[in-house]
């Protein structure tokens, strides 16, 4: 889904796109994190930590470096924006026992990231229970200012809502060339975060799962490029 796995240096160097959201500035980072400037709040979603070991349980042996790589990217984001609060917007862990499989290095990395700031784990469908042995508080949802943060978007929600779960990605094709990239999806009221984990795939924003979530005329896919974020309107986007 990404142009390529970015090194920590590349993640740090990416140029964020500033948008107006809920009357404040939000920086959309090409690494897939959002930073709410006024509240000094960094949001990531769907890290799916320990997905590798989760697959290994059914004898599919993905490289066991996904957790370390994802956390290194999160650490780079924390260093770049120096937030006072970090929110993980659900599915931080690929399964409900995953936090118990975290290695010592991973736990140390999470402690370092949480050091001197608040860390909030919003629970997700993959990890409904609070994680074990890691710092931070676990909640089902969170309100920050006038914005609600939850894992799965509520169709009835009328106010500003930031969610994850869907792993949005967008596809463009013209003149025999095509590109498919993870994206932030938003109509200015709702914002759906891209997945932040290194082993996570994406679901096209044209999929039926997104029906009814957005005001189509104001819809934007903020596609993650190599070192920039590109705002693309609904016109050029196609399904898979």
């Amino acid at each position, binding site marked *: 889904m990404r142009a390529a796995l970015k090194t920590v240096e590349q993640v740090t160097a990416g140029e964020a796109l500033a948008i107006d959201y809920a009357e404040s500035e939000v920086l959309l980072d090409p690494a897939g994190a959002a930073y709410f400037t006024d509240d000094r709040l960094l949001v990531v979603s769907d890290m799916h930590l320990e997905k590798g070991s989760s*697959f290994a349980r059914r004898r*599919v*042996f993905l490289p066991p470096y996904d957790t370390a790589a994802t956390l290194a990217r999160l650490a780079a984001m924390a260093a770049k924006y120096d937030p006072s609060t970090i929110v993980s917007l659900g599915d931080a862990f690929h399964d409900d026992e995953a936090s118990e499989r975290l290695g010592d290095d991973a736990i140390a990395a999470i402690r370092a990231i949480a050091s001197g700031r608040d860390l909030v784990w919003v629970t997700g469908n993959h990890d409904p229970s609070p994680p074990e042995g890691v710092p931070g508080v676990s909640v089902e949802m969170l309100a920050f200012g006038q914005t609600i943060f939850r894992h799965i978007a509520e169709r009835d929600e009328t106010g500003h809502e930031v969610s994850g779960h869907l792993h949005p990605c967008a596809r463009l094709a013209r*003149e025999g060339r095509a590109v498919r990239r993870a994206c932030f999806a938003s109509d200015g009221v709702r914002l759906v975060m891209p997945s932040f984990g290194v082993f996570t795939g994406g679901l096209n924003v044209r999929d039926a799962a997104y029906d009814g979530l957005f005001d189509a005329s104001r819809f934007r896919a903020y596609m993650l490029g190599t070192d*920039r974020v590109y705002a693309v309107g609904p016109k*050029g986007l196609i*399904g898979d």
Partner: protein
Amino acid sequence: MALVSIATPPPASSSDGIDLPAPFLDWFASKGWRPRAHQLDLLEKAEAGRSALLIAPTGAGKTLAGFLPTLVDLARRGKAKPGTRKPGVHTLYISPLKALAVDIHRNLSTPVEEMALPVEIETRTGDTPQSRRQRQKLNPPDILLTTPEQLALLLSHKDAERFFSDLRHVVLDELHSLVTSKRGHMLALGLARLHRLCPGLKAIGLSATVSEPDLLRQWLVPQREGGEMADLITVAGGAKPDITILKSKERVPWSGHSARYAMAEVYEAIREHKTTLLFVNTRSQSELLFQELWRINEDNLPIALHHGSLDVSQRRKVEQAMQGNALRAIVATSTLDLGIDWGDVDLVVHVGSPKGASRLAQRIGRANHRMDEASKAILVPANRFEVMECQAALDANYLGAQDTPPLADGALDVLCQHILGTACAEPFRADDLYAEITAAAPYAGLPRAIFDQAVQFVAHGGYALQSYERYARIRLTQDGTWRVSHPSVAQQYRLNCGTIIEAPMLNIRLTRQRKGGPLRGGPVLGKIEEGFIEALAPGDTFLFAGKVLRFEGIHENDCIVSKASDLNAKVPAYAGGKFPTTTYLSEQVRKMLADPSGWDRLPRQVSDWLAIQKAKSLVPSPEQLLVETFPRGNRFYMVAYPFEGRLAHQTLCMLLTRRLERAKARPLGFVASDYAVAIWGLRDMGQMLRRSELSLSGLFDEDMLGDDLEAWLDESYLLKRTFRACATIAGLIEKRHPGREKSGRQMTVSADLIYDVLRTHEPDHILLQATRNDARTGLLDIGRLGDMLSRIKGRIVHKDLEMISPLAVPVMLEIGKETVHGGETSDALMAEAADDLIRDAIGADI
């Protein structure tokens, strides 16, 4: 391949030494035939317990030769006596094509029935129903006709040793085509296992003429000391084929692959012959040619189309019509290359260069199955370079030169798959398995350390960070054997077994356009690569199954299309599967170019073209690399002529562009053909060279295959594609099975992500080694590029021109026709879309 091909009077035989059993003598006599010398020779070898390679041209009765030892042995053995155990499989026949196994079954059954031999023959392929496969394991036939995949599966079963306990012969058909691929590696490992299970096993290889028969002879027998060889029987070629190059009255185009200019002449040739087989190199060319022929088919001649992507039922229909001699012409790709019998073809037309001398010989062999009659063929070059290539291929055909590809070392992903399969059959000791595997010729040089890495990979992924040991698929037990840890591992193996990783394919479903309502149902026209479809937007048109189709969208596994009203497709067909010109043919073309005294053999238009090149620029000697620079429009061009085939050229372009960027020449783009590369940019590269700001020897230095290559590989989509195949074959990611792939796309792990993580964290992982090895010979052709760079060292000649040279015209015409894919274009595409948005929505809140 038909047995009836021995109907022609045989050459004098040396049959005195061998006693054919009575039914055979009677049968031959009743037909008025006599066995051929090589058939009896092969029988003699087998009787003496020797393995053998039979090299014979099409129509020499190769198949009967291969089976004669089996039939004689079984005739002697007679029926099993009541009350005794029925023996197991006596002979295993392995062919690269399912269709070939079916064909052989039919052809072999006739003599067996006529001689009333007590021989049961059955096929076992991917199409064989489960019930029959089960029955075959309990009650095996005497002769089992099968494919490399089925052999691997049979060997992975717990009772494999018992199943093969009576095996005496294994017959490997079309060996020359099998050995060059990963399927060949899989088969070589399977054969090594058979040799161990059945120590007296005789392997019989059947092959077309190849450049190095000794390699195939080694392939057939266990390599213990190294260099052991099966015996060789060679049958001299039949009558020389009558091949001509179409001397067109029309103008031969500078570039392109359609050969549209020659259609009227090709059509005339079809009219003058009973049945014409038209070969092209790619599916898209076959589509174009078919459409062009029908456009001018005033007599409504029955002309059909046949390629691997068409729906099976459509293909079967065409094949039946062909066998029934109901067709006048058939346009085909390599699906018809191999030895299937095709009725009375009296002319082969090859449109486009055959790209290799051996390939030409094999395709022309299709025309005529009576080896003593000359086959007739016409080559139709699609452009001027192809004229030279066709001439070179034709010369080679007369000289008998062969340029079959060299054999690659055994692939490591196939090795991993085989190790797991072996463990599924029975526990193994690492030392024993290593000895068995290195007895297979492609793996004879496999270092022990790599083998051990492969075992670790099979066990738990083989990562330096050994965190998956508790989930291992195979475990080293106390008695020193590796054992499968759970029965589900065998299931996993069976689902993933095989080496043919097809690009994911979608059905093309033709629907009717309906205003408003959704598109539904309709016939399936065939299959198309998902990668091609992904680059289409709804409304784009493309050519398939002889029709211009409009892309509507994708629904589950269907690519929904409707009939388009325009005559010309907007998106050029996917060019994949194009063979690069062989090294041999390239060398011949370079020689031909450098030798003006031979130009008079070429059509006048072509020799004139070369003469102007000589006058205006330079014609390089065969060892030299000519580099031309010239301005055109507001751009500056650099054109080089390595003649090393498109794949190596694409890699070269990618690397040169990086270097030119560093040298601040500001390159903008490139295009690669089979013969030349062209790079253009904003700065005058000729001037840079004059002022020594740029050096050609530095630019083309071999060290580009070091860091530059590594850096480029980081981003190359080609390498990712290669990795995906390796990871699937090795069993790291599961093969996609029809109907399952589209569900929960965000939950699957893409091979690209795994590749990125692995490259960063474990660059020496066995799968990355496998990927690099493949890239060397495969999509990137790095091996060939390296050979070229070392050949031209100190032999680069530069021509600084004021305008484009004649030789440069063909590659310059490719600009704009070829899409350059790659990671670099993706961001540009998003940037364009973002710009559109800004333009559309001035004042909008973005």
